[in-house]
């Protein structure tokens, strides 16, 4: 464990160096090319880390390299860099234009602007992004590792016929997803448009941001621990649906908030000055104006939650209903060395995934994301409202 941690810290430092370097360079490339690179990066940065981790680990296993976090923590660099570079670019971009113009007008060169102005102003945000993506990356690698362990060491015998009582998942996930969307939309609207000035704003804000920054593995393991503690056998349809709701909720609430934040505060103010109440302003002005981004962001949140959720469904299936698992999942590879502190018990005899004790690495991931959220920059909407 300590060895692995040290290597992970090193890997994270390397990722930060690469990401900051690339992002700073991006600030200086000419408009057209920069825009293109930025778009590519933006696309790469929205792919959930678990997907990148799966791709990388699969490719490495296929080419015969020992591919697991335990064996090679530098894998973290590959998984973290795309997301972190995109976030750094966004952070620098937010800080840069006004500062850069002012400094350039005073005769500063672009390198000295980057080093003396942009980097210091963006430091807390970059630190937050680094911790968050580090936690996400580590979580994703561990998840794929679990998936490999579960699928790779399975006896290839059918325990249950496919389509049997195995997974009545469809309707359950639909219900859980819809209910979650409804609740998160209300929460997002409340926080963004109704809670201003109330003493609840900051804690709710922080909790939502934290929940959405938590690596999916944390939810999965805690859920398994809770379900096991209540005496039931974890990978069943209702806990899978619950996991989906847990993964979707915070992302959806954040999506709604960001969509509402695209409506400038000056519009809300104009509406209030004409005698509209908060509710009327929301209904007749803010919601119509935010509808398009809201659909776009919510779709993104939905896709992301689904992609993050699937590996756990696969793990659950591999453990309890191996025959129901598509064969391509099984080809993900076998070269997984179990980490100390995070063990899958008795996979060979195919009992359910049992983790009654929450492994320390989960607390570590949760702690990292909390610090990351605490370091994050003030959302634009809040800043505008205060000015």
């Amino acid at each position, binding site marked *: 464990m300590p060895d692995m941690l040290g290597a992970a810290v090193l890997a994270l430092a390397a990722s930060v160096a690469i990401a900051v370097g690339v992002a700073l360079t991006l600030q200086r490339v000419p408009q057209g090319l920069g825009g293109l690179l930025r778009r590519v990066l933006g696309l790469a940065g929205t792919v959930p880390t678990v997907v990148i981790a799966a791709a990388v680990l699969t490719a490495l296993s296929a080419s015969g390299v020992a591919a697991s976090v335990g064996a090679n923590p530098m894998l973290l660099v590959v998984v973290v860099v795309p997301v972190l570079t995109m976030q750094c670019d966004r952070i620098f971009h937010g800080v840069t234009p006004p500062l850069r113009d002012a400094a350039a007008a005073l005769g500063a060169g672009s390198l000295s602007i980057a080093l003396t102005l942009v980097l210091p102003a963006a430091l807390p945000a970059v630190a937050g992004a680094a911790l968050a993506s580090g936690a996400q990356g580590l979580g994703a690698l561990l998840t794929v590792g679990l998936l490999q362990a579960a699928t790779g060491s399975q006896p290839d015998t059918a325990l249950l016929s496919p389509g049997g009582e195995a997974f009545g998942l469809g309707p359950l996930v639909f219900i859980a997803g819809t209910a979650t969307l409804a609740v998160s939309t209300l929460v997002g609207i409340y926080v963004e448009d109704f809670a*201003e*000035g109330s003493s609840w704003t900051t804690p709710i804000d922080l909790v939502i941001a934290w929940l959405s920054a938590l690596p999916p593995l944390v939810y999965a393991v805690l859920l398994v621990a809770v379900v096991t503690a209540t005496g039931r056998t974890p990978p069943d349809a209702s806990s899978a649906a619950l996991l989906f709701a847990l993964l979707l909720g915070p992302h959806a609430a954040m999506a709604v908030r960001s969509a509402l934040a695209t409506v*400038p505060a*000056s*519009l809300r*103010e*104009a*509406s*209030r*000055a*004409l*005698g*509209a*109440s908060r509710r*009327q302003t929301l209904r*007749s*002005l803010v919601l*119509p*104006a935010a509808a398009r981004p809201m659909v776009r962001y919510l779709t993104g949140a939905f896709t992301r939650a689904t992609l993050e959720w699937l590996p756990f469904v696969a793990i659950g299936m591999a453990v309890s209903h191996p025959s129901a698992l598509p064969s391509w999942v099984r080809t993900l590879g076998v070269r997984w060395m179990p980490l100390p502190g995070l063990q899958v018990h008795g996979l060979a005899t195919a009992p359910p995934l049992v983790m009654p004790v929450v492994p320390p690495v989960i607390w570590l991931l949760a702690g990292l994301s909390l610090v990351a959220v605490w370091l994050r920059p003030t959302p634009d909407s809040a800043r505008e*409202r*205060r000015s």
Partner: protein
Amino acid sequence: MLETERLTVHVGGVRAIDGVSLNISAGTVTAVIGPTGCGKSTLLRTINRMISLLPSVRIEGDVRLQGASIFTSGLRVTDLRRRVGLVGADTALLPGTVMDNMTYGLRVSGQWRTERARLTRVEEALREVHLWDEVKDQLDGPAEGLTAGQRRRLTMARALALGPELLLLDDPAAGLDPVATQRIESLIYTLRQRLTIVLVTNSVRQAARVSDQTAFLWLGRLVECSPTARVFTTPAERLTEDYVTGRCG
């Protein structure tokens, strides 16, 4: 018609208004002048309670409109804002057409239920700001398509359509060219016949041109409030004289 009594407003820990007592009678134009940051906008935003949209605001003293405090629980803040219009240089256009902008306040008020009644109000208000002839053919065009001066008058017409008793103008001519500025000033002059106006301005000359009385604020305090002619000829305070003659501030 409007009195503030020892009004003190703290915004985010700053005392932006400090014990201001003002008396404004109906049908007059009161200019509020003073250097930047002296609390002019804060004063206007307190009078129609837009200030309470900000977090951490503390208000002491009282503001009375037609003799009744604007802070009584019986008075709905949305009704107050219809009776007391606030238009500033930075007031935003709402998304949509000129017509959307004009009818928004009418629609959310719940009065003027019929289309016909709303159209009459809209035409009256646009005529009042001398905008009707300029925009009557583009009522369904985007409001963004208007010139800066027209937009400024559109935001005024939008507020006037609600039939306010008191109109608060926060530097309404800021950033406009002399012709557009002149239009707004003549508009203020004619509007005075039927409503009361408080005009915040950074232009001392504008205050001299259009107002009946002038209030001079300095660091949140009211230095003096007298008939405009007196403020510009024989002010009671040395500070006022220095400010209006451009020797300080």
